[in-house]
């Protein structure tokens, strides 16, 4: 493979990862506030269909993207309402919404299926685009890919280096302490669930108006991505930078699956497409196994150099969820 083709392919990996990054960072923010938004798979499909329909009708890409964010925020608001106000299981409501929004997108999207709609074009950055290697890789992308790259440090700084970010971590980690310090847990959880949902909702239009432009119903190839997003969020250990790394890893693996296809003619394309999943399970195992008690015990029995090396590796991979994730907060009613 020549260098140019490799560069273009890697640039394509960055583009393909953009929607996953938006969705994963949105989900990370929501889960940091203590709300699991399990509806992701339906949210992305409904946002993709809705934004495509809006962009098609209004001929405006901006309105299309806006519609995607609105849909994502609205679905997240239902999850927040059910869990914060009604104190129902977030997982149950999220799962139902994942299925319901998927079917709703297929039903409502039927009339626009297969229509040619507007598509986001790439906007090379003058001067920077002609830098060798970096130019074709980074600076000939479309606006949303640039934004996805910018979103990573922005989200990290917000979560770990700002005052509202501190409160955000507090309401997911130890809501009672944040409550004593005067934070309105319920309202903040609503706010971050909706903001996270809106950011994740943008993944929809990034697919239907750019990466996989158009709406093709059940064969749009978007069913399943939301579930991957949830797995990558855990892989990311609720840290925007690590989550983005997971998103890039996933896109890279899917691209490798396509590249390796000709080398393995006996293996159907659909099999290589799912190649990242066993790896995802394996990494989830590595990320979580350090929390298990029997691992500590068996580690203690190993000879010293191996033990130190292994426990260091496990600690580096390990991630613990926000302590109050998925639990309702009873503010002394």
């Amino acid at each position, binding site marked *: 493979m020549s260098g140019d083709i490799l560069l273009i392919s890697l640039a394509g990996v960055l583009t393909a990862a953009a929607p996953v990054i938006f969705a994963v960072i949105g989900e990370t923010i929501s889960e940091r506030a203590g709300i699991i938004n399990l509806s992701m798979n339906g949210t992305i499909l409904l946002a993709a269909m809705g934004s495509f329909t809006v962009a098609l009708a209004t001929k405006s890409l901006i309105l299309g993207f806006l519609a995607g964010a609105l849909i994502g925020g609205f679905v997240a608001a239902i999850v927040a309402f059910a869990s914060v106000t009604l104190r129902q299981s977030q997982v149950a409501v999220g799962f139902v919404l994942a299925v319901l929004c998927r079917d709703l997108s297929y039903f409502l999207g039927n009339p626009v299926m297969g229509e040619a709609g507007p598509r986001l074009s790439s906007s090379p950055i003058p001067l920077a685009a002609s830098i060798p290697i970096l130019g074709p890789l980074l600076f000939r992308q479309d606006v949303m890919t640039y934004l996805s790259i910018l979103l990573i440090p922005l989200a990290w700084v917000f979560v770990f280096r700002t005052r509202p970010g501190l409160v955000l971590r507090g309401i997911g980690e130890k809501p009672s302490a944040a409550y004593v310090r005067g934070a309105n847990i319920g309202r903040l959880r609503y706010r971050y669930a909706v903001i996270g949902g809106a950011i994740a909702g943008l993944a929809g239009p990034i697919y239907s108006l750019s990466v996989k432009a158009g709406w093709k119903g059940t064969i749009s190839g978007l069913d399943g991505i939301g*579930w991957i997003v949830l797995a990558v969020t855990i892989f990311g250990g609720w840290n925007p930078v690590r989550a983005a790394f997971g998103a890039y890893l996933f896109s890279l693996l899917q691209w490798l699956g396509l590249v390796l296809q000709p080398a393995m003619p006996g293996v159907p394309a659909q099999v290589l497409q799912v190649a990242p999943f066993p790896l995802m*399970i394996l990494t989830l195992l590595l990320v979580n196994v350090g929390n298990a008690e029997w691992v500590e015990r068996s580690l203690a029995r190993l000879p010293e150099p191996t033990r130190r090396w292994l426990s260091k590796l496990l600690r580096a991979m390990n991630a613990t969820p926000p302590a109050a994730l998925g639990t309702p907060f009873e503010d002394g009613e």
Partner: protein
Amino acid sequence: MRDSRGMRAFFQVGGIVFALALTTVVLVASKAPPFAAYLNIALGAFGSWEVFSNVLVSWVPLLLATSGLLLTFTVGLWNIGIEGQITFGAIFATWAMRSLQGGGTDPAFVIMLSILAGALGGILWAMLAGALKTFGGVNEIFGGLGLNFVATAVNLWLIFGPWKRPGIASMSGTVPFDKALWLPTLTAQSRLSPSSIAIAVAGIVLVYVLISGTHFGLRLKAVGRNPRAAYLLGIPTWQYMMTSFAICGAFAGLAGAIQVTAVYHRLIPSISSGYGYLGMMVAMLVNYRAALAAPVALFFAALNVGSIQLPIVLKLDSSLAGVLQGTLVLFVLLAQGAREFFARKGGKR
């Protein structure tokens, strides 16, 4: 406000009315005649014995999936991996069929063995998710989701690779089995087999008895309500979780095996047909109680089969069934929350 039986019913009916209203709004918004759409679904499901027998054909795997899930829900587990467990049941059943057919074994015996092999496949795939959960700390939702994708991949690989039709591999699946090895159906044209109905009914009865009439079920409930307290009381928590995973896997595997031996007579790419996820919706709608599972599963199966004609007759997408099922479950959940909300507000006064 007292949390009486009447209140409960009021909010449940309210949830159902809201769900129907919202689905009607969706229909009107897509410029479809709502009444004609509902009538079409009803006729498509109950209009003739022929279509109703199709409803029963789809009721069997749905009820089996729901029955298994009632056990995992009771112990507090979200076995989303059930789709993969159905697929693996189908794979194992096909494998047993392929290795035994033409070997001179009694056909009835081969069918029985392959259905048992299906149950075994489901158990193995469920235990994998269970082991990831209990020994690896991987949440069963995410382990299960990943395993679903892997099961789909294995299925496709078999259909397009080792088990492909002579000549050309295709999405239509593997070579159909000998006619002698099809699970006997009511009539030659029908796909409805009495024995599969018997298996499904026996399954839900077994689960009902297990949960509400045995010590085992009582302990499952204890683990589901409060695993820590149950553990301190001396209930081996993880064994109970693994056991419920295994039983649910067996039910899912049976569903997959029946799809292979009675309905399709071969392995096809989308063999699980979404019955696993639909089973989760049924279990949620009946609030995880076994008594109502059979009729609600029948209703969901009727919606699915009834909507098949929608694209042809009314130019509507058949996912309308899923929209109606989803809004029903969502609004019944929300209504339950609203009832508790008002009960809390009332209690404070």
